[in-house]
């Protein structure tokens, strides 16, 4: 496919020239924020921060759904596994690879597995569902984190499970919505001049899903894709708006994202889930930012059957500044534990565990700045 042009160095150079010109005309420091682990990967892997002019700063917000999954929910799921066993039921727990390793004060799902529980890593909720179809006499629970992009697949599979009345398949929903988190950051005082919207969340919610952030908070936005050229174009488009004093939302990722988003997926999500206030690890409770299965589908939520009360847990280990990293207030290199006590092999905080965690991404690419 001809899209290799999106890796094109010459084009990247041209866009960088445009960026430099715009930045010079603006003449003051400009802070741009993105809220996506995959964007952070693009930025760090291609050394974009070091290529940008001095006065253009790129901050990384809460772009990692496993990083913000509350420790209490991980602990509660572990409790459910133990309680089920006490009651003579063996649960097969499935979740994603990075969720599996997230540390809490009472351990991780990986620790649970080493205690002899059946915990399996899956690539997709579809794989989890297929296990349920095969092992009909066992209960399969998918611990289901994720933003809109991951919620859509969850809704697709649940819709089928409900239709086919597959009773041995359930989820533990820790799904979260992205725009309310951005809104919360703004309200809590994180200041930025422009926002790069996550391309794949936007695939689901559309440009439309972000519009209110521009209208209500006066923040210019660009929906951007994930090749270095996409991100650079996003930066350029934002700078141009800022220079002209325009407050708009533009779409750079037109090859994938539509204005109205993926309406089919939106309908599936809306038909199954209610929007509720929800806690984000290290960020507190964010109004209308979580998804809970609707009353009529409660039989597909494991918490309907097991009521457990996990202990109050500290959000983060002492010294871990994940909270500030997730708010876009600090970069990992400002954390005294970064690369010393805290590494991907021995992670202290969730931002170092996940492939999408800003700390792990910085570590992996050797922090080129």
């Amino acid at each position: 496919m001809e899209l290799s042009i999106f890796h094109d160095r010459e084009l990247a150079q041209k866009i960088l020239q445009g960026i430099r010109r715009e930045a010079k005309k603006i003449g003051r420091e400009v802070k741009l924020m993105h809220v996506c682990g995959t964007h952070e990967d693009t930025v760090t892997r291609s050394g974009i921060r070091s290529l940008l002019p001095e006065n253009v700063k790129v901050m990384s917000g809460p772009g990692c759904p496993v990083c913000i999954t509350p420790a209490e929910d991980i602990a509660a799921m572990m409790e459910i596994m133990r309680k089920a066993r006490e009651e003579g039921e063996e649960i097969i727990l499935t979740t994603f690879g990075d969720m599996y390793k997230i540390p809490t004060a009472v351990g991780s799902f990986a620790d649970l597995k080493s205690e002899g529980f059946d915990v399996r890593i899956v690539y997709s909720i579809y794989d989890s569902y297929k296990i349920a179809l095969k092992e009909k006499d066992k209960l399969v629970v998918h611990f289901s984190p994720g933003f809109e992009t991951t919620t859509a697949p969850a809704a697709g599979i649940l819709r089928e499970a409900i239709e086919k009345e597959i009773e041995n398949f359930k989820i533990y929903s820790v799904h979260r919505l992205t725009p309310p988190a951005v809104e919360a950051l703004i309200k809590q005082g994180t200041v930025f001049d422009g926002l790069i919207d996550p391309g794949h969340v936007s695939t689901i919610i559309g440009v439309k899903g972000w519009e209110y952030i521009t209208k209500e908070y006066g923040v210019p936005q660009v929906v951007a894709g994930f090749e270095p050229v996409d991100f650079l174009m996003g930066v350029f488009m934002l700078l141009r708006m800022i220079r002209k004093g325009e407050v708009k939302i533009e779409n750079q990722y037109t090859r994938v994202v539509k204005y109205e988003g993926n309406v089919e997926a939106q309908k599936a999500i809306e038909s199954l889930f209610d929007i509720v206030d929800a806690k984000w690890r290290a960020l507190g409770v964010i109004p209308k930012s979580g998804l809970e299965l609707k009353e009529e589908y409660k039989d597909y939520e494991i918490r309907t059957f097991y009521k457990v009360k996990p202990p109050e847990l500290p959000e983060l280990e002492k010294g871990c500044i994940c909270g500030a990293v997730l708010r876009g207030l600090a970069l990992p290199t400002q954390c005294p534990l970064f690369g010393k006590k805290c590494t991907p092999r021995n992670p202290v905080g969730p931002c170092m565990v996940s492939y999408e965690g800003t700390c792990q991404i910085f570590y992996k690419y050797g922090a080129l700045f």
Partner: protein
Amino acid sequence: MCLAMPAKVVEIKDNVAIVDFGGIRREARIDFVKDVKVGDYVIVHTGFAIEKLDEKTALESLKAWEEVMKAMEE
């Protein structure tokens, strides 16, 4: 977990497709991409095709951008 990647559809059976990520083939559900055909490119995220990739728009948008950049240089 969140990485979503483009892949080419090589086979379709009901709401499951076989997609090719540059040599690696996997199953992907196509519940949310209507009228997808063999040969189309889709963005796949955790086992689901979440949208079709529109090659024509992609190339058009790049051309449009090159022109904007050129105009700015002048």
